[in-house]
């Protein structure tokens, strides 16, 4: 039996102060030219929390607007007025920056996060009313500091400041005096990733009515690395996040593959569950501070607000077949191998047509492809074009080359088998996974039959190989066979024979 896609959660944390102080575009600019006009005027281009919530792609990410509904709005979406301003969504929430800093403090188990007294009191009050935060964690806000002490940690001990509303409200200290792998900068990035992962886990459990104790394994698939100088990247975000989320019966591990990480992780999870090793496995990832405001210069230069102002996260529950949820068909897995080559048609073929062909399927047999679902509002002004659309065009062009469609039908293929993008440009976050929440519902509602999930990764960024990478798999409607073992015809015959024999015996007894 195939494993199934049992649930999905998606969260955003609006972090405008982290855009200014922790996004690499801004930190690099500060190093090169601290007095640049870009940095001076940056705060004028930042959105408020309410504006961030009202942004249509964000409401799509947390599940309040479907991709089809989003496509109905004219682009660019940042110019659209929206009636959707909810913090809570079907799949998760959009958390404001102060509460997110509070969650970072909760996720710090080494006493490295120091919060200023008044801020700590205010955040504690807010998180008290957050239904998913375990009250046992709130005592972390009772131990806090005067601003002068925090300024001392920043000035004397290389602590990274935590800002809210442009003011210093705390700091994150280095975990070691010399070890660069435990510097305040690295710990900051890792705690942000961990906190956004934890929030995703909490929403996944909450929205899918599964017990925390039922989760046996977590695979974390972000793009961060935690460890010390002797084992940089040793891990393990998965277990660290599971601990805070209260998944007491889970262990876990981290899988890395740049933007392809989530799809690799889902294949691992699906295989573990199909093999019967575990019944419930979560694939999850938090977001990245480095990518905040990544295209900020292009946006500000064109008079567009900074749209990369959220740390994102997601969690996906892969479970044993329940007879209802969409199945993860691990017999249709596409792979960009070492020998595939780098031409676009080899890449796309290896991830789509080659895998489908083995299963006797055509490219047109997949109803929806979920690719790199980057929001075009963000990428187009930065000269990167419309990423999902470019992917759909390539798959359509491949279908035309294979004479599965006419060349003139390319545009129709793109609109029928594709979607608009809505995900923040946080690397692994937009890669295949943002559609899984909607896909689960649409497959269960029998609106579609098959979805292909494609993850691609730019391995060359790590300078260990020039290769690119990608993997894919197919999600399909549940066959309905459920968890029960299939009963063979022979067994049925024997059962009927036994019943008839029983029946005959009763008749004989009655007559007697």
């Amino acid at each position, binding site marked *: 039996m195939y494993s199934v896609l049992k649930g999905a959660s998606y969260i955003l944390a609006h972090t405008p102060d982290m855009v200014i102080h922790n996004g690499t575009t801004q930190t690099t600019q500060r190093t090169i030219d601290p007095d640049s006009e870009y940095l001076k005027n940056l705060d004028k281009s930042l959105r408020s929390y309410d504006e961030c919530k009202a942004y249509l792609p964000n409401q799509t990410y947390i599940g309040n607007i479907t991709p089809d509904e989003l496509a109905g709005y004219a682009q660019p979406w940042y110019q659209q007025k929206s009636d959707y301003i909810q913090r809570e969504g079907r799949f998760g929430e959009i958390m404001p920056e102060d509460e997110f800093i509070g969650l970072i403090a909760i996720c710090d188990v080494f006493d490295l996060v120091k919060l200023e007294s008044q801020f700590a009191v205010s955040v504690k009050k807010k998180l008290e009313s957050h239904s998913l935060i375990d009250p046992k964690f709130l005592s972390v806000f009772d131990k806090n500091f005067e601003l002068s002490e925090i300024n001392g940690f920043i000035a004397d001990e290389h602590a990274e400041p935590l800002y809210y509303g442009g003011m210093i409200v705390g700091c994150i200290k280095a975990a070691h005096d010399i070890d660069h792998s435990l510097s305040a900068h690295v710990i900051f990035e890792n705690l942000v990733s961990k906190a956004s992962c934890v929030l995703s886990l909490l929403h996944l459990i909450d929205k899918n009515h599964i017990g925390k104790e039922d989760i046996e394994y977590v695979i974390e698939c972000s793009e961060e690395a935690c460890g010390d100088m002797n084992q940089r990247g040793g891990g393990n975000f998965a277990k660290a996040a599971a601990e805070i989320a209260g998944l007491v019966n889970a262990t876990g591990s981290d899988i890395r593959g740049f933007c392809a990480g989530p799809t690799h992780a889902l294949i691992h999870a699906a295989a573990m569950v199909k093999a019967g090793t575990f019944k419930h496995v979560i694939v999850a990832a938090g977001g990245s501070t480095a990518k905040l405001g990544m295209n900020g210069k292009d946006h500000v230069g064109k008079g567009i607000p900074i749209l990369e102002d959220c740390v994102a996260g997601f969690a996906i529950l892969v479970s044993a077949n329940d007879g209802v949820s969409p199945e993860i068909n691990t017999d249709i897995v596409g792979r960009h191998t070492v020998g595939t080559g780098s031409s676009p048609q080899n890449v796309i073929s290896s991830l789509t047509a080659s895998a489908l062909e083995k299963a006797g399927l055509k490219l047109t047999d997949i109803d929806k492809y979920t690719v790199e679902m980057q929001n075009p509002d963000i990428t187009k002004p930065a*000269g990167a074009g419309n990423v999902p659309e*470019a992917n759909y065009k390539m798959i359509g062009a491949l279908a035309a080359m294979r004479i599965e469609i006419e060349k003139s039908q390319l545009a129709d293929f793109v609109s029928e088998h594709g979607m608009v993008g809505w995900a923040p440009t946080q690397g692994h976050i937009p890669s295949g996974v943002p559609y899984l929440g909607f896909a689960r519902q649409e497959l269960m509602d029998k609106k579609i039959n098959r979805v292909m999930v494609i993850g691609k990764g730019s391995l060359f960024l790590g300078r260990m190989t020039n290769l690119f990478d990608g993997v894919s798999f197919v999600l399909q409607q549940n066959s309905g066979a459920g968890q029960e073992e299939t009963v063979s015809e022979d067994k049925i015959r024997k059962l009927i024979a036994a019943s008839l024999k029983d029946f005959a015996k009763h008749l004989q007894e009655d007559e007697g």
Partner: protein
Amino acid sequence: MAEQYGPENIIVILGAAEGEAAGLAAETVTAGDPTFAGPLAGVQLGLKVYHACEPEIKDEVDSAVYDEQISMMEMVLDVDDIRKEMSTIRDEYCKF
């Protein structure tokens, strides 16, 4: 490489996915990096530069190889826009 082999002996072939990006790269190797971010900022090499989908390059390549490596992308890209952008840059800045 321009210094080593002489700029007149170099042809740059681009594979950018759209006109604006192709134009930016073409400008970098002709008039100098327009973003003033890299080593070619203010360096006017004036090199010959073409996109892989332009006929000047396509005609030089074995058609079977072109079909295998480029034809799918040719179907996807706005080739007219790319050609227009490339010839504008060449006309203005190319020295050879």
